[in-house]
């Protein structure tokens, strides 16, 4: 052994050296990927950051620098300011509810349930579907002559009947319902994956020691689930802040801007009203929000993970 080993490793060594000098994947191979990313990610984002401070209308060849004017206008415009508030409300509630429900489902599904595969598929199926198409099903459910009001009428709650997506107090929450309904399966699957990494013996040992279910959940399951929580919460935050399809299909941002989000406002201001500078200023706000909230959350949760 001791005589062959060095010889073996040295031939491998020369082989590797020769391999590297004769081939070595050429740097040319990185060019296409680097080019598209530099152009469509970095350059475009940098340009967006510049246009946010201009009055560009999207047509004229040059744009005037107007400082913080766009941002002042955003704060003074009820539709845009409302969009900012709605986006935060929607993202916050969506993150909490979809993660709590997703975790609950994952825990209930985790072990011993016989139809586990089927249940997982049933809850996950909406995730892979087009949000737009799915939202139309719900628009029907929420419509005035739709099943929701039908059900309310049948149990004698006629006074609650309304066109849900057209009601300023409810429009935003119809979007919330659809978001949770569609994406709870995604949180669930992420938590299930996390739960699979927890050794069963650990849980059983502490059960034998007489720890209650709740205590076991808090002291064993939850800490070991920390990485899954980090990923799921961060992702739903990013998705919740950028929500567009559901709003567009269900309410169109209405009634009277009651359910506008930043993404729908960006679309309308830029492409319907031709206010490109204003639209990019809104995009900048959304970008900063996503970056701060997602990265901040990631940092905090990761720090907690390592402490646990």
């Amino acid at each position, binding site marked *: 052994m001791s005589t062959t080993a060095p010889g073996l490793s040295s031939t491998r060594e020369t082989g590797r050296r020769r*391999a590297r000098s004769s*081939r*070595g*994947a050429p*740097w040319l*191979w*990185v060019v296409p*990927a680097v080019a*598209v*990313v530099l152009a*469509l*990610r*970095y*350059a*475009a*984002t940098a*340009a*967006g*950051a510049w246009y946010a401070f201009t009055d560009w209308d*999207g047509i004229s060849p040059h744009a005037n620098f107007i400082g913080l004017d766009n941002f002042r206008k955003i704060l003074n415009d009820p539709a845009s300011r409302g969009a900012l508030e709605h986006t935060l409300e929607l993202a916050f509630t969506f993150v909490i509810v979809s993660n709590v429900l997703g975790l609950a489902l994952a825990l*209930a599904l985790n072990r*011993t349930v*016989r*139809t586990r595969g089927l249940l997982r*598929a049933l809850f*996950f*199926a909406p*995730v*892979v*579907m*087009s*949000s*737009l*198409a799915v939202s*139309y*099903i719900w628009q*029907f*459910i929420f419509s005035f*002559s739709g099943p929701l009001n*039908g059900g309310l009428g049948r149990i004698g709650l006629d006074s609650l009947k309304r066109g849900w997506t057209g009601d300023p107090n409810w429009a935003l929450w119809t979007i919330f319902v659809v978001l949770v*309904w569609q994406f709870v399966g*995604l949180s669930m*699957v992420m938590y299930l*994956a996390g739960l699979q990494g927890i050794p069963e013996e650990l849980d059983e040992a502490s*059960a*034998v020691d007489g720890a209650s279910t709740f205590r076991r959940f808090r002291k064993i399951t939850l800490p070991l689930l920390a990485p899954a929580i980090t*990923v799921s919460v961060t*992702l739903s935050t990013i998705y919740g802040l950028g929500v*567009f*399809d559901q709003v*567009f*299909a269900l309410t169109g941002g209405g009634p009277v801007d009651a359910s506008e989000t930043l*993404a729908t406002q960006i679309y309308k201001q*830029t492409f319907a009203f031709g206010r*490109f500078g204003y*639209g*990019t200023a809104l*995009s900048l706000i959304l970008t900063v929000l996503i*970056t701060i909230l997602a*990265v901040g959350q990631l940092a905090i949760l990761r720090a907690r993970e390592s402490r646990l």
Partner: protein
Amino acid sequence: MGLSRYTRRTFFRELTLLVIAAIWWVPFYFLVIVSLKPDLEALQSPLSFPQEVDLGNFSTAWHDAALGRSLVNSLVITGGSVLALIAIGSICAYTIARRPGRMSTALYLLFVLGIILPFQLGLVPTYAVMRHLGLVGSYLGIILLYTGIWMPFSVFLYTGFVRALPKEYEEASVVDGASTMRTFRRVVFPLLRPVTGTVAIFTGLIIWNDFFLSLIFLNGTDKTPLPVAVYTFVGAFASRWNLIFAAVIVSLAPVLIFFLVAQRQLIRGFTGGIKT
């Protein structure tokens, strides 16, 4: 042991879960029921079981929403983007992973930061430039856009995988006199299959279902993918739910079939893409 035995309580837990799942699927019941009814019945009693199955809505929706063309558009756009993400992403990641040094670290960082950077801010300038170049409303424009947006993710996944891959196979192939390209195609790329699957499933689904970008870049052209076609159709046939739902079902069908056939791989690919 105690915790994994199937007890009465487990049975009731399972039953509750099945009931919740059934409630979760009620919207799909409405979707199918309404889509099978002729106009009058859909209006008068939308929720009852259809008196007779009427597939007329599907042919109307298929023709009036031009769903056939949109299906082809969706296939071309998603297929083109995913192919680019795999081909360009894998060779780039391979080079980064196999030539460690300052250059490769810098490039790696470029892609990782690109994942974090939200795409929305660059959207308007991209639109302006593409309009200038005549790329708005073209396959090439939207494929480029998706490729740019998802490339950091693809490179990131591939790089991680290649780094964990032993070099022996490639070296043997090079010693045998194969060129780098040939080695990559014949030896390395087949070994990357698990990541290729993850990249394809994850980005493929997101691109297939994307509405926001395709609305901005393709609305009003003949290149519209399925979601935009459904949106346009709903605009024209507002409140005629039987027709709308037929269109919705057709637009959901490809993904649903895929889901039924490869549910396990799909969920794995999706979570695999997300976890990293």
